[in-house]
């Protein structure tokens, strides 16, 4: 028999329902504002408030920086609502240097690629964009290799 439990030891219900919420969120954004909502651009467009560097002050970033902040704040608020209702508070045990280094590399890469798990992953796949689909396959591959090498040689959580 197909070993379903082996692939999904925690079940799939919460994954499925959470994913539907995310899909509904991106759909709601599109229906009300027409915007295609990836997350990573926020980390570039926000620099336009404090940096004079021309790249950060491109029209596309300056024109979208305000709604991107609202979107980012919304993300944190939604998670707070989850914690206060059905969720449970938790603090990760991943080390601070892993979080900082991983964030730096992921931030650099996502902005070079112009998309991350939400932009290329959800929005890109949903709009049948071949570059995004390739990007997803590539980052899933390098992430799996990295995570497994870290576990094997680093002995890190």
């Amino acid at each position, binding site marked *: 028999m197909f070993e379903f439990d082996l692939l999904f030891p925690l079940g799939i219900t919460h994954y499925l329902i959470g994913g539907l919420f*995310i899909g509904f969120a991106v759909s709601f954004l599109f229906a009300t504002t027409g915007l295609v909502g990836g997350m990573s651009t926020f980390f570039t467009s926000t620099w336009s408030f404090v940096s004079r560097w021309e790249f950060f002050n491109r029209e596309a970033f300056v024109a979208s920086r305000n709604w991107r902040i609202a979107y980012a704040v919304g993300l944190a608020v939604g998670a707070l609502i989850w914690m206060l209702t059905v969720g449970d508070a938790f603090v990760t045990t991943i080390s*601070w240097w892993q979080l900082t280094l991983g964030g730096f590399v992921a931030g650099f890469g996502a902005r070079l690629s112009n998309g*991350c798990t939400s932009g290329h992953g959800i929005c890109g796949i949903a709009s049948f964009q071949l570059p995004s689909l390739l990007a997803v396959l590539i980052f899933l591959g390098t992430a799996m290799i990295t995570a497994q090498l870290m576990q094997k040689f680093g002995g890190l959580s």
Partner: protein
Amino acid sequence: MRVAFFGSVLIAGALFGFGLSYSTMIKPEVVLSFLRFDDFGLLWVLGSASLTTMLTYQFLPRLLRKPLFDKSFREHAAALDRNTLVGAAIFGIGWGISGVCPGPALAGLGAGNWPMLFSLVGIFAGAYVQGRMMKA
């Protein structure tokens, strides 16, 4: 109109953050368990979110001429070039180091997972260096 526009963005963000939390994607440990092949649940999150969004992107513009609070439906075209692919490979390495990507970093902080501040500092710094390497 402005209030409705920004209010909608905020609500969409909140739904997104709630979904990321409910699916446990805001827990880096869960993401790492996927990347290490211990639990493939992340694929259900990506699958159900993408499928729902796909239906909306395909059918909504046929039902509505424009979004409720703005002038037109946007598209975000991804380019098939070196930066997109090399950037994706680098992004994956960072994602694999910590199990954190941009959305869950923001949502995780909202859920009280304060070490996500390290991730957010890292992501902002990475985005800054990338931007400084680009000519205007």
